[in-house]
């Protein structure tokens, strides 16, 4: 069931297994039958660790979502709250506990499992409510890094970027460092640490400190990772703002992928069975899991969307041919052979059907005039054209009241590609946005400015062209079908973050010192001692393994670019990716927007 986690260079099943073991241990502490009350946000991430069957084996009989009022009348011995340490959730829990029928017998025992950390404040708050004593076990479950795929880990900390760069609250970095310590406990000490950015420096410091404070953590595991690369999201603010053009990236841009699941409009997935013509179309969205466990998806997810159609049609031919085989099956043996292959063929067929439908849905959007116009402007900005004046398309979009997030993405992109906007241009955009969308968005604009996404050009100098040229961020001759460079993921733009990773592996950062100085935050290198017995003797031709940790979020297109580098024949490096959160431009900007009360009508 979790086979996709072990398909990569590093077997991440071990991490998942460790998580499951801890979960089982906790459940067994609360002896007897149990009901779990879930903070709904957690069900997605937990689903990647365990299925209901595991909980059931440990006497979890009922599960509910956390909400105010009386708890349902489940006849269990234990009620366990699985929650994030948030004060507003503590309120609900207190309400639940206070409304519990004291007269009922037998009494139910209460417990809390905080994810990922116990919070002193939350416990204090429960105490003020007079319910702290009702809990027998109050513990924490350090779900720091969750395995999403064979080469992908995420903390799913939604507000990490905002907290780090806007509020200077570095709690999420502490958790990142914790997660890295856990990884090292399982996969050995990582001998080399590189980093770029303030947060990267911070995490590296914490790791070194934690190692010092846990002298026992000197483990005897053979190091799996050769290198850790810590990258601040604010070193590359540009990439997430651009529209991702890989298959997976576009699915995320358009429909949003949550914990490897996507919800799609049901129309295209209507089962077309004969004799059921009058059947109603399903109205509930179609939910699909997307990961490398699905062979076809693994093959197409990182391709530029323009290259997906031909793969799908090729697959269709192969599958058709395979089914045709049945006519040639004459002998019992041949028929048996055919039948034995049927399940696999059916899985392939249904997978193909799903992705053909998704590709059609996406294509409706990518062929629209507006998508084209939007992309044109993005590409102009990224290649350095007309970044210093008010853009007509953006103005038009404001006039037509396109979604505010779309406007903000474009304006921020222009600002980043121009190392800040001329004051006059910035003021003009601000005025138009406030007048059209409401003055209260002043707060959001201020947040974006604070995060460095939207700012006046202060130095009077635009560094972006230099950075673009040195790092070859814009490639004119991009090949979408058979790419030879990472720039295919944005049809021309090579993500800065991944370029840094690529250049680090070969020829090393020394070659780009000047540009590194132009990017925010320090760059550094640290070494961690590995006992001689555990030092790697590399076989000839064996690839190095680098863990790239994006602090503040990573996009699917960047992941695709790193996977592309992993697969390069003479690349010499394979990448595993970790992040605080999987993001796209929209979800990212949204996390920085001031939460406004809904309009009163």
């Amino acid at each position, binding site marked *: 069931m979790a086979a996709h986690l072990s398909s990569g260079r590093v077997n991440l099943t071990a991490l998942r297994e460790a998580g499951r073991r801890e979960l089982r241990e906790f459940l067994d502490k609360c002896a007897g039958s149990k009901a779990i009350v879930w903070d709904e946000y957690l069900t997605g991430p937990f689903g990647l660790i365990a299925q209901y069957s595991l909980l059931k084996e440990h006497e979890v009989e009922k599960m509910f979502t956390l*909400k105010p009022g009386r708890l349902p009348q489940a006849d269990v011995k234990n009620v366990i709250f699985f929650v994030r340490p948030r004060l507003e959730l503590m309120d609900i829990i207190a309400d639940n506990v206070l409304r519990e029928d004291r007269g009922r017998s037998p009494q139910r025992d209460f417990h809390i499992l905080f994810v990922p950390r116990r919070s002193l404040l939350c416990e204090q708050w429960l105490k003020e409510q007079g319910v702290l004593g009702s809990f027998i076990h109050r513990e924490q479950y350090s779900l720091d890094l969750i395995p999403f795929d064979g080469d992908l880990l995420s903390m799913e900390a939604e507000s990490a970027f905002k907290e780090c760069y806007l509020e*200077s609250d570095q709690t999420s970095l502490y958790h990142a460092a914790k997660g890295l310590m856990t990884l090292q406990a399982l996969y050995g000490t990582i001998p080399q640490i590189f980093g770029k950015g303030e947060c990267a420096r911070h995490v590296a410091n914490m790791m070194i400190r934690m190692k010092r404070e846990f002298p026992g953590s000197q483990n005897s595991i053979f190091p799996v990772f050769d290198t850790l690369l810590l990258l601040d999201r604010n070193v590359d603010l540009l990439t997430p703002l651009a529209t991702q053009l890989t298959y997976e990236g576009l699915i995320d841009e358009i429909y949003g992928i949550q914990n490897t699941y996507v919800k799609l409009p049901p129309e295209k997935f209507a089962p077309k069975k004969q004799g059921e013509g009058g059947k109603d179309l399903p109205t509930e969205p179609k939910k699909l*899991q997307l990961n490398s466990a699905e062979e076809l998806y693994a093959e197409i997810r990182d391709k530029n969307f323009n290259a997906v159609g031909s793969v799908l049609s090729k697959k269709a031919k192969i599958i058709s041919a395979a089914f045709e085989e049945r006519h040639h099956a004459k002998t019992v043996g041949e028929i048996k052979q055919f039948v034995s292959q049927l399940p696999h063929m059916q899985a392939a067929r249904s997978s193909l059907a799903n992705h053909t439908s998704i590709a059609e849905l996406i294509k409706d959007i990518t062929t629209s005039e507006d998508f084209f116009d939007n992309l044109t402007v993005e590409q102009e900005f990224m290649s350095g054209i007309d970044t210093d004046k008010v853009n007509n398309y953006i103005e038009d979009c404001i006039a037509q009241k396109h979604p505010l997030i779309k406007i903000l993405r474009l304006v921020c992109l222009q600002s980043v590609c121009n190392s800040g906007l001329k004051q006059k241009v910035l003021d003009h955009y601000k005025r138009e946005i406030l007048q059209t969308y409401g003055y209260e968005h002043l707060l959001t604009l201020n947040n974006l400015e604070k995060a460095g996404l939207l700012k006046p050009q202060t130095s009077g100098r635009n560094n972006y062209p230099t950075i673009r040229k040195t790092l070859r961020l814009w490639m004119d001759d991009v090949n979408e079908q058979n790419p030879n460079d990472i720039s295919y993921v944005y049809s021309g733009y090579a993500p800065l973050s991944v370029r840094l990773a690529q250049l680090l592996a070969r020829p090393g950062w020394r070659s780009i010192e000047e540009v590194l100085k132009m990017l925010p935050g320090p760059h550094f290198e640290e070494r961690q001692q590995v006992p001689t017995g555990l030092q790697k003797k590399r076989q000839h031709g064996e690839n190095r393994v680098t863990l790239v940790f994006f602090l503040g979020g990573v996009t699917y297109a960047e992941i695709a670019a790193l996977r592309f580098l992993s697969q390069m024949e003479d690349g010499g490096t394979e990448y595993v990716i970790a992040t605080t959160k999987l993001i796209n431009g929209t979800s990212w900007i949204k996390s920085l927007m001031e939460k406004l009360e809904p309009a009163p009508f």
Partner: protein
Amino acid sequence: MSRARADEEEYWHSSKFRAFTFDDEEDELSQLKESKRAVNSLRDIVDDDDDDLERVSWSGEPVGSISWSIKETASSSTGSLDGRDSGLQRGSSSCAALPKQASSYSLSSLFKGRNKLPSFQSLSDALSDTGVKNYAPELRRPKAEYKDYSNDWSPRDTVRRMQRGKVCSLERFRSLQDKLVLLDEAVAGHDGNVITALTHLCISLSPVEILFRELEVRQVALCHLIHFLKEAGEQKFLLDLLRFLDRTEEVALSQYREHLNIQDVEKRREFLKGCIGLPFSAEDTSHIQDHYTLLERQIIIEANDRHLESSGQSEIFRKYPRKASILNMPLVTTLFYSCFYHYTEAEGTFSSPSNLKKTFKIPDKQYVLTALAARAKLRAWDDVDALFTTKNWLGYTKKKAPIGFHRVVEILQRNNAPVQVLQEYVRLVEDVETRLNLATKYKCHDVVIETYRDLKDRIQLMAYKCKVERGSADEEKINSILNNVVRNAH
């Protein structure tokens, strides 16, 4: 769009940019169709077994996943529950029930015993009990942890134990100085949970000014506290702190943010008035001023129009009842509203479009766009015409559009303007290529025909003949032009 369509076309063909289209060499749409066809044809062969194959409920959730199971087990326990509780069963919709607003905890309630010892101890109470265990894959723990409960942990050990959620007593750390030592340890350990908790511990015991001064030199702790105060909606405390720190612009923004929590419009207006004097940047000050003025206007307009509407005297309100109140709407929406309901009013009235334009210095372009959209929606074509008509001093009239006539056409078209009206503006599009495109797209035959005539493009004209209705006036017109040209040629 300033670049004319023709330029754009050329730009694209000559440019190095790759457009994101499907139709390069092979038509990918047909490829998709092909795979779709293949998939469909295969259905008949394998359909019956389909359901056994994927054990997935319709929503796609694999049977047995956690979120699926919440719904399952919840519904199986419905039984004897009363109606109120049955809301619980709809697992997926429940998140709407969680309060979204910032919580209303007051610090004083969080730390009731401020300036008294008990609350101080209560924090350690919270810590000092029950089987605490860190559920993380095993890291070997330092020796210190295996020691039994002890009262004399050093500040460093105390903080480390707190980081690990371990039992520890804070009773020893009585004075502010003691606690600041703890805080510094926590900051060095970077654990936000502990930093925030200890910052609070300090709050609970010391006079605010002294604490502020100590925090000022502890930026990390300060940031954590400010973040917490924001999250918890502790506005007063936050403002006091920011004021002390002299972060004037942040004070201003924080204070301004509060208007969002005021539902009553009169109170909101008063509040915004108070915001005008706050130390914003110059640019922002003018926005805040505008925000206030706008709401003030909206209140006047709203009162007036509600009366007009309910009295039933005004035709426009009878014909087009208002869908919502104009209160708290953005400026451009207000301008649209005013162009819709109050277009002909004199500049002197607050609700007139020209007054809004003047008060808020709305640029011509934006004004024309909005007025055009509003008048087109009402199908007031004369007003549309007047918008673009200018008279020079000799009394000649001229058509001019600050937004370009191609935009005018688009907006009119979106409002279902009849061809006769559209045509008039398509004709005014200067760029020939764009004009032809628009005219063809919106079937303004006259314009197409005239343009080809002026271009003397016989071939296109002939080709266009098949696009107009047979026997129509348009066809006749084409024929006559073609004949004319022929005659002239001879």
